[in-house]
């Protein structure tokens, strides 16, 4: 039905296509992650953002490479949208030495400082401080950079949400707080953990302006964040943007999802799949062939990334003992010297096998 809308033209059309391309890349990447996780090629935990792609795409389209974002445990979309390569991401999830974090981080701890991606975070609400700090850093260094924090509804019940939003508000820091309100925190419905309909009201308690947008509409997210970024760059301080969205998959891959009806998921996705939504908004401005090409290009990109990951070696066991501190790796680094001395007493006898190590692809 959305198809009957008037077509969108010019720059707006190009933006829409760019947002659509990004959402499709995220969808394809995460469907791939799901497949390879279930195939045992990806160790650890993985949390998918399928259904929420419009938030990552719409937000990051407003950012420069030198702007910062902090992400969550559900960060694949944010990471890709901020500009990280699929190769680097997939290799990381496959725990390979060529991963963006050398295989030390994985899905829950993926970061790419080359594009200002300060990391997924295994700690809910872990990103608030990092973003407050990145925004404060921009002020201290007198740049016009901004910092964006992605977080879920559940994270807004933790203390660091409160402390950092207040801090950013009183100091007018160039921070944007993008809430992905997907109605659940793991097995728990948001209605059970807060008495308020819109989390945005909490921003009033910090004197911070807020907006509530349809998180399935990448244009709506883009426009709200664009205004926030403009204000932040101009020294106007932080903004709170609540995106109403939905998690179409389990909390993590393998979640039995006893806390909601399958039909609820289907109903939401049938009505609001952000990719279908954008296709509808573009209408005539995007031919079926162009739409198909976006998918095929994304699939090729993923296939290349998976091949790259599979052909990459696992990290050397030796790597486990390096990298906690700065400094060169030889005995001149005191911390390392101690590690080596202690390790050499017994670590060499640690067998290179164990429950998880199958997953390493060896």
């Amino acid at each position: 039905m959305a198809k009957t809308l008037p077509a969108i033209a010019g720059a707006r059309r190009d933006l829409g296509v760019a947002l659509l391309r990004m959402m499709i890349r995220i969808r394809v990447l995460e469907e791939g992650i799901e497949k390879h996780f279930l195939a045992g090629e990806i160790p650890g935990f993985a949390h998918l953002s399928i259904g929420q792609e419009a938030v990552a795409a719409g937000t990051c389209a407003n950012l420069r490479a030198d702007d910062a974002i902090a992400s969550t445990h559900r960060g694949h979309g944010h990471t890709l949208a901020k500009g990280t390569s699929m190769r680097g991401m997939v290799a990381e999830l496959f725990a390979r030495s060529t991963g963006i974090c050398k295989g030390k981080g994985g899905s829950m701890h993926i970061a790419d400082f080359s594009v200002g991606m300060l990391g997924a975070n295994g700690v809910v609400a872990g990103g608030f401080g990092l973003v407050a700090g990145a925004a404060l850093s921009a002020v201290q260094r007198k740049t016009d950079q901004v910092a964006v924090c992605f977080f879920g509804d559940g994270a807004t019940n933790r203390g660091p949400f409160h402390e950092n939003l207040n801090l950013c508000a009183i100091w007018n820091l160039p921070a944007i707080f993008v809430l992905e309100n997907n109605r659940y925190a793991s097995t728990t419905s948001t209605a059970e953990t807060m008495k308020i309909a819109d989390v945005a009201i909490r921003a009033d308690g910090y004197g911070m302006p807020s907006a509530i947008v349809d998180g399935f509409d990448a244009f709506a997210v883009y426009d709200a964040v664009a205004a926030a970024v403009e204000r932040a760059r101009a020294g106007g301080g932080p903004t709170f943007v609540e995106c109403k969205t939905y998690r179409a998959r389990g909390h993590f891959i393998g979640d039995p999802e006893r806390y909601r009806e399958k039909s609820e998921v289907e109903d939401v996705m049938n009505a609001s799949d952000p990719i279908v939504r954008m296709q509808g908004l573009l209408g005539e401005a995007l031919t079926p062939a162009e739409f198909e090409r976006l998918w095929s290009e994304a699939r090729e990109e993923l296939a290349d990334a998976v091949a790259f990951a599979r052909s990459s070696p696992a990290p050397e066991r030796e790597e486990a003992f390096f990298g906690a501190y700065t400094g060169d790796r030889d005995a001149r680094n005191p911390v390392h010297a101690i590690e080596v001395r202690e390790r050499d007493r017994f670590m060499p006898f640690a067998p290179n096998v164990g429950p998880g190590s199958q997953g390493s692809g060896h």
Partner: protein
Amino acid sequence: MARTISFSDATLEAMREEMRRDPTVFLLGEDIAKQGGIFGQFKGLPQEFGFDRVRDTPISEAALVGAGVGAALTGCRPVVDMHFADFITCAMDEVVNQAAKLRYMFGEQCVVPMTLRAPDGITKSAGSQHSQALESWFVHTPGLEVVVPADAEDAKGLLKAAIRSDNPTLYFEQKALFPQKGAVPDDDDFVVPIGKAKTMRDGSDVAIVTYGITVGRAMEAARELEADGIDATVLNLRTVWPLDFDAIVDAVARTHRVIVAHEAVRVGGVGAEIASFIGEHCFDELDAPVVRLGAAHVPVPFAPVLQEAMYPKAPMIADAARRLVRREL
């Protein structure tokens, strides 16, 4: 009479029995009720005791522990699930400055019968922020009791003892142990006394002093050592504070060679307290240095090959024992 059940079911039995026994016992935690907990360790509890005594909470660790302390001060025996031990860091003031200190600084006017359940340890590439073993911090924090079960029997008996204790007690349950099966006595009043260790195996050549999941690894090492004609004692501490110093002294006296092993980071770990206590109190009993084994001084990495390289397992323990007995250190 004993039955063989999983570690996780053993904790479930402990909860069920204590909640039946004492109406003031209740559970707080994230995602524990509706879906029975990440490890199924709470399955069926809300159905029997109601969602008021098994409460799903917001993601508010500081409030959960703070409220646990407040409830413990006012006539309840709350059990607070930390979801992952790593998130104790989100409630550290409540544990250290409130729970641990109130009784002492208020001149013993109150008790704080709160139990914190903290699933911890290294497993399945959970990564740096979901794999820590932090018991050492709390041994260094006066006012707390700290227990670390090694098997299903410990899991049940120590959880019951923790809930019944009038002191705030941290119960570190290692995630990798949840599926492991073991024998559990058929007795609703079976508890494992806090502060008492258990000798799992009695040998004269070397003593492996350990706790938690590393007990199983030490037993495996001991079997390996038997082949080489080395007879090892394995002491399961069960409680890391208060430590069973008498049992430790006894193990040293019987073997004169000691390995202290745990999965937590070796530097500054509980092993350091034990090894230095032995040095202080058993100086003339020792034929060789006390060897400490623990995780390397790095965060826990994601890649399985890295993760498996940085903490002590059976082969490492066995090798250390061999070298210790042969004076090859």
